[in-house]
């Protein structure tokens, strides 16, 4: 981020009228902290740029201490609190919050308290201690606390992360929630078919849990969406769409109540396919016009089912919108045709993107070509503005990364790997984290996770670079296994 962009970001945040002045200062402080933290990874403490930035941070700190007795930041359930007030992030500062939350968690820090009188030296020492620690290592709080004290930092306190904040078996739980969602959907679809009530409160709990896991470990959840179960395609697909849609909704700054409605809408967006004969859904050859007409009825059928369901249960209205509109294109073509042409609902536009992406990256009997995740995004970006809402698609592409999580890639080292995490630094979008699955000779291995942003200290060049996205099915690679393996290992 350029200095100008940073200033813009700070200015925009500061301009939000609803924030208390001190909360605005706290957000400014976090933005500045984020800048210095990243500088600290590159520079030495005596670097002039670093020094200037620290001075600015200190000025902000003094401002805050003029109004508050201390400046305490706490991490609670993946949210940042400043002196008891939750700091909300929007689309523009999402990256900063995510970065800071991730760093706090990695260092097992539950709170940082800056007391009045904190000096520039103390700030410098503290930030360097945090930033210069081995980025890959899982670090203990005790060691850090001792180091802080040893460095003579007295006016900054750190508190350990509460046990309740530490997600044990995170991947295992994410995977469980994923399967439970499929199971619950299966149950719901069967109940609907038999005119029984769907357990919507359970659906809500599952959406809540999916959201929580996205907050905890976004990349892993998106990795799970690589699972393509051909027997229960619609169920599997619906859960994938839910995870991707909730992730996109979160990125654009929807509130929790909205995310809940969005998640429920995504869960049930294909409910209408219950009425589509399996032989048409799975027909290997192309569909004739009559069969196509049958397929194209599913949005209406789904909407109708949800409409009747809504009469008895507290189903969000948007779920009906989404069921009806998720095949309406941005240029208002698509299907079904409307009585009164009007723009699709925001949630329908979000679900459409997630739905399309998951659909074209899934091998289906009738689909001649299966797209890799990167190809799928490219293809979708070509239809930006006509098929998809361009800005939502842009956010979606940025969420999944240039090489989307789950992409099977060939590196310039001749190793092959699976993208398991994006790099939060915008300039490193082409340098995700990759789980190595073969060595340079093509021998399959259960390799480590390689950060493609890592450089060779001797040459200053990147150690590995992606040169090609490969088709996993062609080489017998089941991408989802590599994600589920993480869950299984921890269990």
């Amino acid at each position, binding site marked *: 981020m350029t200095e100008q962009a940073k200033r813009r970001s700070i200015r925009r945040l500061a301009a939000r009228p609803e924030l208390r002045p001190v909360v605005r200062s706290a957000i400014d402080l976090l933005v500045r902290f984020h800048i210095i933290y990243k500088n600290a990874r590159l520079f030495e403490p005596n670097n002039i740029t670093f020094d200037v930035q620290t001075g600015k941070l200190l000025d902000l700190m003094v401002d805050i201490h003029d109004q508050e007795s201390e400046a305490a930041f706490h991490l609670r359930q993946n949210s940042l609190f400043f002196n008891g007030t939750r700091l909300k992030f929007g689309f523009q500062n999402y990256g900063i919050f995510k970065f800071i939350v991730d760093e706090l968690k990695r260092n097992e820090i539950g709170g940082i308290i800056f007391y009045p009188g904190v000096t520039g030296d103390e700030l410098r020492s503290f930030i360097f201690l945090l930033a210069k620690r081995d980025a890959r290592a899982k670090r203990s709080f005790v060691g850090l606390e001792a180091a802080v004290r040893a460095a003579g930092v007295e006016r900054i306190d750190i508190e350990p992360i509460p046990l309740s904040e530490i997600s044990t078996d995170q991947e295992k739980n994410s995977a469980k929630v994923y399967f439970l969602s499929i199971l619950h959907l299966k149950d719901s679809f069967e109940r609907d078919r038999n005119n029984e009530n769907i357990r919507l409160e359970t659906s809500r709990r599952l959406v*809540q849990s999916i959201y929580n896991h996205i907050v905890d470990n976004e990349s892993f959840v998106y990795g799970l969406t690589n699972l393509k179960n051909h027997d229960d395609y619609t169920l599997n697909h619906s859960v994938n769409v839910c995870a991707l849609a909730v992730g996109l909704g979160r990125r654009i700054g929807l509130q929790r109540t909205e995310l809940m409605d969005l998640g429920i809408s995504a869960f049930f967006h294909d409910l209408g396919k219950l009425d589509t004969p399996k032989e048409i859904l799975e027909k290997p050859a192309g569909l004739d016009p009559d069969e196509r007409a049958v397929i194209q009825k599913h949005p209406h059928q789904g909407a109708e089912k949800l409409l009747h369901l809504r009469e008895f249960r507290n189903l969000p209205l948007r779920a009906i919108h989404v069921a009806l509109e998720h095949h309406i294109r941005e240029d208002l073509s698509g299907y079904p045709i409307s009585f009164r042409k009007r723009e699709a609902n925001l949630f329908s536009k979000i679900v459409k993107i997630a739905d399309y992406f998951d659909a074209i990256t899934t091998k289906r009997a009738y689909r001649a070509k299966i797209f890799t995740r990167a190809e799928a995004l490219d293809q979708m970006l070509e239809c930006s503005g006509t098929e998809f809402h361009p800005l939502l698609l842009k956010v979606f592409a940025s969420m999944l990364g240039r090489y989307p999580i789950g992409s099977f890639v060939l590196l310039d080292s001749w190793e092959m790997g699976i993208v398991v995490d994006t790099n939060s630094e915008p300039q490193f979008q082409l340098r995700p984290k990759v789980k190595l699955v073969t060595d340079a000779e093509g021998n399959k291995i259960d390799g480590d996770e390689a950060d493609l942003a890592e450089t060779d200290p001797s040459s*200053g060049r990147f150690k590995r670079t992606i040169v090609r996205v490969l088709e996993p099915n062609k080489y017998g690679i089941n991408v989802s296994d590599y994600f589920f393996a993480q869950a299984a290992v921890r269990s």
Partner: protein
Amino acid sequence: MAAEETKNQIPSSLREQASDSAGRSTTGKIREILKLLSQAVSTIKIYPSIHSSLRTLIDELAGRFKSFLDEHGAIEIGIQERSFTYAGQPVFRDDHAVRSLPFFFFKDGMQILFFYPGLDRQEIVEFLEIIRRESFLPPDEADIVNALWEREFGNIQYFAPDDFLESRVLKERDEWAQQMHVVESEGIVLSEVEIKVDKDNFGRGRIELDAEDRVPAARSDSASTEIREVESETDGQAGDQTGAESPLHKASLNEPEIERIEFMIRSNRELPPHQEYIDLLIEILFLEDSLPMFRSTTSVLEQHFMDMVQRGEYDQARLLVERARLLRAHFEQEKNTSKAARLDEFVKFARDEKILAVIKAQILSQDIASPEGLMDFLRTFGPSVLQVLAEVYERIENLDFRRLVLEYIRAMAREDFRTAINLANDHRPLLTREIIGLLFDLKNKKSIPFFANFLNYTTKDIKMEAIDALGAFEDETANKIILEFMKDPDPEIRTRAALRLRYLGDLGRLKQMILQAQSREFRKKSPIEQKAIFTYLGKSRTDEACRYLKSVLMTPSLLSPKVTSLRLLAVDALELMSTDGARAALDRGSRLWNFKIRRACLQALEAVAARSARSEGQDHLPPEADAP
């Protein structure tokens, strides 16, 4: 160091006692807080949060929370089936099956509840409100964890692990499987979700890239260069990465784009949900092929319409009918008569008496949120709604709504005055008087015969209003009805009628009045009524009337005050008449023995002369006096 030394000087047993005592005191405070919390929950289920006793309770609870949180920091409450724990110790228990607060949290899988410093009264109130709301929901719709998650409190957090969700989903699945005799497919174990991956496969085998995929790898150098160009302007050097803004980064959202997204979200929040729902219903009906499903969905339409009416959402109800009519027109054009007919049924339903009965009840209970909205909605019913409005008119307290109703009746009356007349009723004095007023305003003489309806009314005010209106018509038919009013048992009505009677050249009517004045009954009438009739005669300015009045004037009183009074009334009428004959009669009267009569005649002559002088200047007849 000093503190350490002091600590060492205290015997360990005493130190333990002090520590125990501090622990007990902390636990005691928590116990008190939880007791208050439970009391507040029970109270808020009965009273609103503004109720004084609840406010006191909440104030105390907020105070206790603050004092504890300031002193000891965050509170972590363990949740057991029927009890709360603090620091591993039970601190609160409630075994009551329904009201138990610990169970209320426990049943939804909550294991820990956290309260953090900064918790304020407002958050406590909202927390209590959420508990109240959830506790009133049907069991299968309530979930306190969902509710707290959606509210996202700053200083109240909870811990509810996924294990609970797992057991809930599996239990539901198990119940369903048993009910439907479903045999689960392999891989689903109903006691636990298992994740099985054979990791050994990861290390087995080799991947041989095909020719297509090998090409770029062979050109890895150039590919790297290409990517470097995309990455940054740093020539692949890691050192300069922080300052550079890569083209990809530029491809991320810029400020106007962020604002557009924020605008989209705001607009989405502002969409009126009912309007959206109506549009959806119509779209779903439009797409429906199956007639039975079409019928079923129109039932939803009907139910939704009724719900909206019951909730007082009249604008939306009106919109729904409008949209249904549009769709009906579409089906009619498409020659889809079955669907058009079904929509006709809906429109009929929307105009049904049942709907009007609901609205009537709402008006009577003074439950009118939007007078304009309600009136706009009622207008869609057309004239059939007027009877309902007339029935409730007298009891409408909302003056805005009453005004709107009247405006509507006025508008309808302009089209056909009979519509308004039909609404008049002896038991609706307010409305009926308004109707008379608006008939008068309309000045439609065709409405005059309908005034005869008021003759049989018992409400005096209505009759008076009708007489006044009739008088203003200056019409023979109106006079005829006024004459009928002159037979009313109520002297005031008769008087008013006589006053409003106009001479319009009908000698027969005049003679009828003279005969009435000559009758024995006339003598029994009140002086005011007698004067009113004489005034009519005076205003007629006819010789017949003059002759009669003169005869009354000349009748000897014979010490009868009643006769004298009647003669004086005749003087007044002659003065009003002001014709030559009248003046001559007055002149004769001024020479009679009776002092009162003589004086009255003289005064009348003076008045006539003065009026005559004035009128000569103005070249017109003296104005008629309307009132005695």
